[in-house]
């Protein structure tokens, strides 16, 4: 079963994406989408070396809700910073110590950091233990690190578990 159906969630996501692309729910497209959802994970299996289980879907949904809220709030702060004077900015690099271990978790965290305005993730260290972040205006680096850890990394560590 596992051999022919390696990533059930990916299959489901592909089916939904196919239906959204076509903007229909007709039977033909449902069938075609299901076929693509089966064949694509099978053919791309070598791109997914780790088996990650997604635990606690509600934590993940709450994480997305928090992320959307933070994006809106941070967008307004950054808009004010951009429109304000350059000399009020304190751009700096921050080295963020990663606690999350698996690759999927790290990439989701890095994307989250880039998506929230004011921070962009720049580089992952070779041993995958630290992430280099550039912040548009960070006077207190410890605060930024604590914020990211508390709000984003902790829920992600609960969601993406190696199995």
């Amino acid at each position, binding site marked *: 079963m596992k051999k022919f159906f390696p990533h059930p969630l990916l299959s489901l996501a592909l089916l939904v994406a196919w239906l959204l692309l076509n903007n229909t729910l007709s039977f033909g497209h449902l069938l075609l989408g299901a076929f693509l959802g089966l064949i694509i994970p099978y053919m791309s299996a070598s791109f997914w070396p780790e088996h990650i289980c997604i635990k606690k879907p509600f934590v993940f949904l709450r994480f997305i809700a928090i992320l959307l809220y933070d994006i809106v709030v941070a967008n307004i702060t950054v808009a004010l910073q*951009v*429109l304000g004077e*350059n000399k009020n900015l304190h751009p700096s690099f921050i080295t963020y110590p990663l606690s999350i271990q698996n690759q999927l978790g790290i990439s989701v965290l890095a994307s*989250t950091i880039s998506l929230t*305005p*004011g921070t*962009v993730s720049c580089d992952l260290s070779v041993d995958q233990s630290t992430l280099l972040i550039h912040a548009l205006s960070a006077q207190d680096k410890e605060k930024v690190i604590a914020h990211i850890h508390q709000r984003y990394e902790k829920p992600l560590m609960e969601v993406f578990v190696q199995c």
Partner: protein
Amino acid sequence: MEILIATLVFIGAFFTLVGSIGLVKLPDFFTRLHGPTKATTLGVGALLIASSLYFSSQHEGLSLHEILITLFLFITAPISAHIMAKSALHIKKNEEKKERLDA
């Protein structure tokens, strides 16, 4: 409904504009990176919600393409920002090396 859509389009346009202003006026490469990544999130996000609402209310049936656009943007935007930041770091590193060799 129209007022809601108009407000969303306005918000989207405003944040996209701020993103572009940021691209022009911020002092160096890394701070400039912040401009466009921000414009994609709230700017394009608001525009796409407006588009989804408009086409759902004007025509029959829901229009949900926009969710997919948002999803793809949210997946790809951080990656391009990451690659640009990383290459900038490497170019700078090379420059430092060159200076050391020249000295």
